[in-house]
C-alpha cells in the first residue's frame, strides 16, 4: 500500500508512533469501552451522506 520509495521512512515513523502508543495505560477493566470517535460536528451530512466541503 505504501509506495516503495517511502517504505523506509514510513517504517521509521511507524516505529516512533508505536513507541508512543506503548506508553499508554492499558490496565482498564475489561468492560471499560473506548470513547466514541464519531465527530460531534461531522463534515458529512448524516441525513444525505453529502460531503459538505468543496
Amino acid at each position, binding site marked *: *500500500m505504501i*509506495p516503495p520509495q*517511502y517504505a523506509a*521512512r514510513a517504517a521509521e*515513523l511507524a516505529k516512533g508512533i508505536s513507541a508512543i502508543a*506503548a506508553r499508554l495505560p492499558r490496565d482498564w477493566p475489561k468492560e471499560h469501552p473506548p*470513547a466514541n470517535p464519531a465527530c460531534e460536528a*461531522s463534515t458529512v451530512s448524516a441525513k444525505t451522506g453529502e460531503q459538505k*466541503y468543496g
Partner: protein
Amino acid sequence: MTDHMHAFCMQSGYPTIASALAAMAQGRVTAADMLEACLTRITALNGTLHAVHHLDAAGARASRDAGALAGIPWGIKDNFDVAGLPCSANSRLRAGRIAAKDAPIVSILRQTGAPLIGKLATWEYGTGTGAEHFDLPNPPARNPWDTARFTGGSSTGAGVAVATGMTLFAIGSDTTGSVRLPAAATGCCGVLMTPGVLPMAGGLPNTYSMDRPGPITWTAEDAAIVLDAMLGTQLRAAGSAGAKGLRVAVVRDPGPGLPAAQAELAAAFEAGLGVLSRLGARITDAKLPWPASTCLDAARVIGAAESASIHEEELRKSPELMGAALRDKLFAGMGISAVDYLAAQRLRRAFTEAMERFWDAHDVVLCFGTLHLPPRLGVEPESSNYTMETMLTPASLAGLPALVQCTGFSDGGLPLHWQIMTRQGNEAAMFRTAMAFEGATDWHSRRPT
C-alpha cells in the same frame, strides 16, 4: 476593557473589535473606513508575512453593512469553504478547487454583517508534524513579532492577521492546538468552545473526533463579542463579572517526558496568578486525572490514525504531491494498530469521565499552552517542539472549552501566554477569568511594529 484602553486602541491605529464598534457607533469612523484600513495593511504587510492566501477585497466591499459585526473585517483559515473562493488548504492535491457554497460557520458570520476579506494561511490540510519544510504551494507565514520565527500552526495566518490589524478577528480550526498555538505565538486570544457549538462542517477534516473551529481575536473581550454575535450568547456580559470567588486550579507540571515551561513563560504565569489572586480568585494547586504528557500521547495516536484514514487514498495515489510534514504524519498514522488506537480511545473515555468529576472542586484550570517561546521557523527541533511539547491536548481529548491569552512579553519581545480550560458549557467562567486578567493588565497596548 476600560474606556481609556478603547481610546488608546483607536488612536494607535490598531482597533480592537470593542473599540471599533464604539467608534462606529459614535460616528467617528465608518464601516468602510475600517475595511479599507485593513485592506491597506494587507497590501503593506502580506508580502512579508504571508498571512493571506486568497484576498477577496471586492467581496468584502460588497458585504452587507448591517448587523452586530458590521464593519469588523475578518478572515478564515483556508480549510473552510467560502462560495466562489479557492479552498486549497495549501495543498497541491487541491489545486484549482473552488468552493460551491459557504461553510455553515461562514454563513453564520455573514449574517452578522462582518466583511470577509478572504482565506488565511494554513499548514497543508490543517495538519502536520510541527516541522517546516518550505515545500508547500504558499510560503510559510511569518511571525510579526520576529519574522524569523514561527507563527504557530496549523492556522498559521490567523494570529498574524489579527495581531497586525489585517483583520479584527479570524476563524481557525483546532485539533490539538491549531487555534491556541497561533494565539500563543502572536499575542492573540484563541478560543475553543464546547464541541458542536460552532459548526466544523464545511471545513476539511483533520480528524474525525477532535476538530473544532475557533475564533482568534486580539482580546478576550473581542472573542466574547464575536461569539455573542454568532451564537446569541451573553459571554461579554458574563465575562465582565470579575474573578472574585472563581475556583482556579493551577496545573504547572506537564508530566513525565515533557520539559518544564521555559523560564520566561513560567515567570509571566506566576505574575498572572498574582493578578488573579488580588482580584479575588481562589487559587489552588491541582493535578489533572492524567498528566498532560499522557494526554499528548493519546492525542498523537488518535490524531495520526484518523488523519491517515481520512487521507488514505491520497497517500496511496499521490504521496509525491504532499508536503513532507503531512506525508510524515500520515505514514505514522498508517503504522498504528487498531489495538493501539483503541487503547488511546479507552484512555480518552476514562480521562473525560474523570474530568467531569474534577469540576466538582474547580471552575477553571490554568496551565500553559505550549511549553516554549515561538521558535525560529524551520529550525529543528525548536519548531517541532513548540507544536508537540504542549499542555493543549487535555482539552482536545475531553472536548473542554479552552482559551489562550497573552500574559506578557519575553525580554526579546516575544509574546507569552497561558491557557484557561473549563467544563463543557461553562464558558462564562473561562471568560470571567480571561477578561478579569485583561482588565487588570495592559499587555494589549503593545502591538508588533
